[in-house]
């Protein structure tokens, strides 16, 4: 308890620490936004709640890490992970997802959960259970009194790459024909089919796109933080928190929620200790669910 109070008073005495926490949080949060966007995409288009989302992310991280181990330049990892995970996503869609789309929601949830377990275990067998990261070898920038605020250039690059990818995806969704087809299918699959859209192709594309986005995010994460085969579930949870808080189709909301959660997690870790980081992510999930539930209750509805 004293520890907690001590940590809290630190925030008040040295306001600049707040800035550091927020910056760290926002930088991680940017990746949460990417992963959450992908989750919302698959959720909105096919009504599949992908519990394996985080495992796709970690897989992408390992693709990039393995590449670096073979001697390739680190930054190449991101586009390669994007492509490789696209392919894996496509295979997963054909083998598993396509067969659970039409079923009830618990089925798809459970199927992706099983998938998550499989993926985490396969990664564990292939790469071992140590945490891994890729060192870009860039400098760190320091700001503020006593150089309290440190921003590794690698992290900055990572966030910029995430941002670029996000912008590219959004532009694609708005202006390309496939993007339009996806949006049409999301609104009303049957109507889309009647209008001649091949919804099967749209579903496969969407899921593969999501997998690729996750892969790229993972490749960025391995550069600027850590990956480990069993870290997947926490990214899945964070993505769920963002989507539940912001709602589907609410891009500004997703961005705000993602960045917000990143910041909140950093605050939590600072105040309560690093061991609580996982707990905070899950507690945020419960909090968000509870708040949405109360909102629905006012209208005598439930959260479906």
């Amino acid at each position, binding site marked *: 308890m004293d520890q907690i109070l001590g940590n809290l008073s630190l925030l008040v005495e040295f306001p600049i620490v707040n800035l550091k926490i927020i910056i760290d949080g926002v930088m991680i949060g940017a990746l949460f936004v990417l992963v959450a966007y992908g989750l919302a995409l698959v959720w909105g288009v096919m009504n599949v709640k992908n519990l394996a989302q985080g495992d796709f992310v970690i897989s992408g991280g390992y693709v990039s890490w393995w590449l670096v181990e073979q001697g390739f330049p680190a930054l190449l990892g991101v586009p390669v992970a994007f492509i490789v995970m696209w392919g894996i996503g496509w295979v997963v869609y054909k083998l598993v997802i396509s067969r659970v789309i039409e079923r009830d929601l618990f089925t798809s949830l459970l199927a992706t959960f099983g998938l998550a377990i499989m993926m985490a275990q396969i990664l564990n067998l292939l790469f071992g259970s140590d945490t891994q990261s890729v060192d870009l070898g860039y400098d760190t920038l320091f700001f503020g009194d006593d150089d309290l605020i440190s921003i590794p250039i690698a992290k900055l690059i990572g966030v910029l790459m995430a941002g670029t990818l996000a912008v590219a995806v959004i532009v694609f969704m708005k202006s390309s024909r496939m993007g339009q087809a996806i949006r049409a299918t999301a609104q009303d699959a049957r109507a889309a089919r009647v209008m001649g859209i091949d919804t099967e192709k749209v579903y496969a594309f969407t899921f593969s796109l999501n997998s690729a986005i996750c892969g790229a995010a993972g490749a960025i994460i391995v550069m600027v933080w850590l990956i480990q085969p069993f870290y997947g579930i926490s990214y899945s949870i964070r993505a769920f928190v963002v989507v539940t808080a912001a709602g589907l189709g609410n891009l500004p909301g997703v961005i705000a929620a993602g960045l917000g959660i990143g910041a909140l997690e950093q605050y939590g870790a600072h105040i309560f200790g690093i061991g609580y980081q996982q707990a905070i992510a899950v507690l945020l999930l419960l909090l968000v669910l509870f708040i949405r539930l109360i909102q629905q209750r*006012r*209208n*005598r*509805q439930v959260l479906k």
Partner: protein
Amino acid sequence: MSSIIEVQGVSKSYGGVVANHEVSLTVKSGTITGLIGPNGSGKTTLFNSIVGYHPIDAGSIQFEGQEISKFPVQKIARLGMLRTFQQTRIYGAMNGVENMLISLPHRKMSIWDALKRNTREDYERADHLLEFVGLYEKRLLKSGDLSFGQQKLLEFAMALMNEPTCLLLDEPTAGINPTLINGLIERLKRANTEFGITLFIIEHNMRVIMNMAESIYCLAHGEMLAHGTPDEIQNDQNVIDAYLGAH
């Protein structure tokens, strides 16, 4: 004759659209009252408000003298006011008898009663009501396999099984084969006279409602347009205009 339902100044909006605007009506105990109006006039919204499906924006709804506008659906159902659904909702995986048994009035059961099995009297009552609506022969078939009209009859029987004081029916004859409608009207009337249940009915079929109701309310564009006996309503110019779309 006392009022069993008293609606005063009820307003309800959905996302910017005003579905009901200061609607008032009274349903007298033991009668059959009708609610008519062109499509989109807010009839089902009003029904939903009365049975507690959603909160209302303004106004008051009283059932047997008690304010119920803040009550949820289950509470109102346990007070004795039930509703049937336009799309007809029954427990499709169960057969007719099971549907009836689950419709026993739970407000009359203690938790100990709930832990017992259904009694012979329960089965007999279920059979009797199924006979009443003409579904006795099909009572052991999976109810999801029944035809739409049969499901509607089952839903009606289930409502009767629950021993309501008041029953709100949302388009009870919609989708029913015209040759069977007379039978349904007959049964609705008998439910009213023999079982003493007050009926409040949304109907599009003019022949049916004019035949059955003692008092009719007409909604249009979310507001109460007219009220009276079937004769008065049929001759009301406003009502005629509303249905023919004149402004």
